[in-house]
């Protein structure tokens, strides 16, 4: 199996007057947990949407396991958007059935197990849940797939610190050795310990792509400190 899960070449995307992505190129290997880091509005969400085929870039190409975004890539990517994207009127049980119907890699037992751990009932309706609970359910569904690439957009933004720990633990333990996890966030300190690589994105361009160990060795600083230095206002 080819060791490259994602290849983005010279991606550009403009919204009205702002250039969200500008000649952004990156290559991701299998089996890594990668932080996609950058301040608000730096292009993280736009990049994830392009990878998932929800936006079409103005220029450049994206290949996921060799395929442009499409049916094949959607089969192997598990995507957590930064929105409450699930159908409001459904119960957790209905949502699980929905996922199981469409994604052959969905592991129902894994989902039930995580629900139990986080004290969530499958009879709860999505509509009546709090913001944080909705995020937990979404993350459970996304992480219950045995995908090859997970794209998580701000997965821990709205949840309490205790659940945050459990979720990070879930992300770490629940994915197979060959899968890649791409996490976009600005809560760096919380996830720093689980990352293998980091990508710094600034004004839509790649600023840095390196392994966490390399940064610690060469610069002798944590990712959080490096981030604060790079993006100093």
């Amino acid at each position: 199996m080819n060791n490259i899960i994602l290849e983005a070449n010279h991606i550009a995307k403009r919204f009205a007057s702002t250039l969200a992505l500008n000649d952004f190129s990156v290559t991701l290997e299998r089996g890594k947990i990668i932080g996609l880091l950058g301040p608000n509005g730096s292009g993280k969400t736009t990049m994830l949407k392009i990878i998932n085929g929800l936006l079409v870039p103005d220029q450049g190409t994206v290949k996921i396991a060799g395929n442009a975004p499409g049916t094949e890539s959607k089969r192997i990517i598990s995507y957590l958007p930064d929105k409450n994207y699930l159908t409001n009127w459904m119960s957790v049980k209905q949502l699980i059935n929905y996922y199981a119907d469409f994604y052959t890699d969905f592991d129902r037992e894994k989902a039930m197990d995580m629900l139990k751990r986080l004290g969530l009932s499958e009879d709860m309706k999505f509509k009546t849940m709090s913001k944080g609970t909705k995020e937990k359910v979404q993350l459970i569904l996304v992480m219950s797939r045995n995908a090859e690439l997970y794209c998580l957009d701000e997965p821990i933004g709205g949840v309490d610190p205790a659940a945050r720990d459990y979720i990070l633990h879930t992300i770490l333990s629940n994915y197979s050795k060959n899968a890649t996890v791409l996490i976009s966030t600005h809560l760096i300190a919380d996830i720093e310990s689980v990352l293998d690589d980091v990508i710094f994105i600034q004004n839509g361009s790649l600023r840095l792509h390196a392994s966490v160990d390399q940064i610690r060795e060469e610069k002798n600083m944590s990712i959080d400190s490096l981030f604060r230095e790079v993006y100093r206002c």
Partner: protein
Amino acid sequence: MLGKLLKHEFIATGRMYVPVFIGTLILTPLLALLIRFSDIGEESNIFNMFLALSIFGYIMMLLAVFISSLIFVIIRFYKSMTTEEAYLTFTLPVKTSNVILSKLIPAVVCMVLSFVIFLISIFLFTLIMGALTPHTFSDFWRGFTEAYPYMEDYSSTFISMILVTILSALVALASLVLQVYVSIAIGQLMNSHRLLTSIGVFIALFFVIQLLTTIISIPIQNDYMRDVMFINESGNYDRFADVMFSNYFFSSFVGIAENIVIGAGLYIPTWYIFKKKLNLE
């Protein structure tokens, strides 16, 4: 995968339509009874007010059945294809064509069901109002059997007419739904004023399509009028039914062909936009 998409779409649309259907079937006898017993044939302000209100209520309800069925089509497509729900719709490992078809088929089916509910409601209403009695049915049947020998020559024509009419209605409905879809698709290309753009596109398309179909129908109706005049002058009235039927079939087939061409013309850009130009907020 189309099967699974259809299953979930029927569930999602069913939850909107079924309450309207059930509500209609419950309200119809209630309103009919109210009308029947308010109409006591005497001058009484309170009863007359009841009567007027319940008749008005019944007409509004029938209107609501039709309007809601179209509104549900719009809401369902708009929400699942362009809002947050679209994040799930478009990350499912399914083809864009299947996604659109899985919206179109339940939309047409539910609109047809709305019409069936409308007919049932009218039937129930007349039944309860006392306008229909067992006599009505037996009279109708007797009339039918008496008239049948005279219509026998045309029985296959009548059956084909019914089939052609149903087919015309289905194709016209699908074309209307696709007109909604393409308007929403074009609207989502914009970075702002999406809904306004969609409404504008829909109205513009409506006028263009009306204009085109009217232009196409003019020569057909002219021919028909010429034939009718000819019969009138020659006094050969036996041919009148033939001319009328053939005009009906011919204009129906032209209508079906038009709607298929229009439907395809609306579907292709819808498909292209959602496949190649998806622009989720």
